């Protein structure tokens, strides 16, 4: 299917999509230790001695704060996606892309409201955002900045979507958590198609003029982005709120664990294959998290 046709189909699908209605329980009904809030296999400390040292109550408590950390991470990243989408909406000459960027920004805005609602209602706050953008992270070759923007959007959404898909169907989790993951996945499925189309389009238009050094630098940057996203999934704030000692050391331990690398590599596998097919391998031998 031609890119324009794909994006027109996405526009039609977004226009038909209705907002999610979520079954918010009262804050008083939410007890962190009463159940799982993140699928236990996806808790960041799984595979480390620290997880072995936790009893069931501590594991469930951590799964609650990791849910809040995951949703907070989404809020912060979506704020950057919305800003980037609006900026590109203002300068694109393609009406189908412009229309889709409007849908994209609106849907991301709705997701942020949903994630933020969970954090504020049940965790009492949104976890802090510690990112600071540097203009010099990417070079100034033609098309490179847009390529990096859409490539990062694609990678981030692919990673969080893997968590969404797994937790939307995990019957051990409360219905509100499953509904949030389900709702997010519903829209992200379209965003991922759009992201691949835009990355493919930008690559085709600009990559032939990029020298080998630029391509290598882009691959290294995207690999570093995946690794940084993997570290973001290991929240020192969640460890602290769960009552665990030395949260930064725990974060380093979790992020470096083989289990975390395996989770991340699985989550990003489809995108890694997509980028490799473009001619931009994110890593050798399927390792993107090192």
């Amino acid at each position, binding site marked *: 299917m031609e890119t324009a046709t794909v994006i027109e189909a996405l526009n039609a699908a977004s226009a038909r999509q209705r907002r999610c209605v979520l079954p918010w329980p009262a804050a008083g009904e939410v007890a962190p230790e009463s159940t799982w809030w993140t699928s236990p296999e996806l808790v960041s400390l799984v595979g480390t001695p620290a997880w072995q040292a936790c009893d069931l109550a501590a594991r469930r408590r951590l799964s609650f704060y990791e849910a809040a950390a995951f949703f907070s991470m989404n809020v912060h990243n979506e704020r950057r996606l919305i800003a980037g989408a609006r900026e590109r909406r203002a300068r694109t000459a393609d009406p189908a892309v412009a229309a889709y960027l409007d849908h994209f920004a609106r849907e991301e805005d709705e997701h942020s409201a949903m994630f933020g609602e969970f954090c504020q209602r049940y965790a009492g706050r949104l976890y*802090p*955002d*510690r*990112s*600071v*953008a*540097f*203009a*010099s*992270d990417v070079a100034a070759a033609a098309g490179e900045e847009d390529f990096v923007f859409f490539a990062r959007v694609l990678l981030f959404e692919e990673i969080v979507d893997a968590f969404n898909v797994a937790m939307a169907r995990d019957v051990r989790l409360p219905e509100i958590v499953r509904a949030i993951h389900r709702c997010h996945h519903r829209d992200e499925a379209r965003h991922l198609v759009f992201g691949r189309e835009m990355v493919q389009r930008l690559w085709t238009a600009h990559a032939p003029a990029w020298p080998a050094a630029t391509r290598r630098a882009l691959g290294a*940057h995207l690999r*570093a*982005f995946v*690794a*940084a996203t993997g*570290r*973001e999934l290991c929240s*020192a704030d969640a460890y602290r709120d769960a009552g665990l000692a030395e949260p*930064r050391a725990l*974060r380093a331990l979790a992020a470096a664990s083989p289990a975390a690398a395996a989770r991340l590599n699985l989550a990003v596998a489809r995108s890694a294959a997509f980028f490799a097919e473009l001619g931009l391998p994110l890593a050798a031998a399927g390792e993107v998290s090192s």
Partner: protein
Amino acid sequence: VTISASEAREAVRIFIAESSGDGARAEEIGDRTPLVERRLLTSLMVADLLLFIEELRGVPIEASSLGPGCFKDIDTIVSTFFEEAT
């Protein structure tokens, strides 16, 4: 603040050298070495650096008010985050 400015200076220098991934050694990073310009520090490393600084300071940092200029070099990082200790 739980650490002196001079201790913070050396701790941050070592942290950046170990995190930069390009083989830089701490003794090669001077107080005025342009960290961002030389890509010894990228935006993808900032969250880890801020967590490290929070641990050194013993108090959280409000990152929303920070810009790339706060990370220009070791001198600037120390004056931005550890000025109470100087």
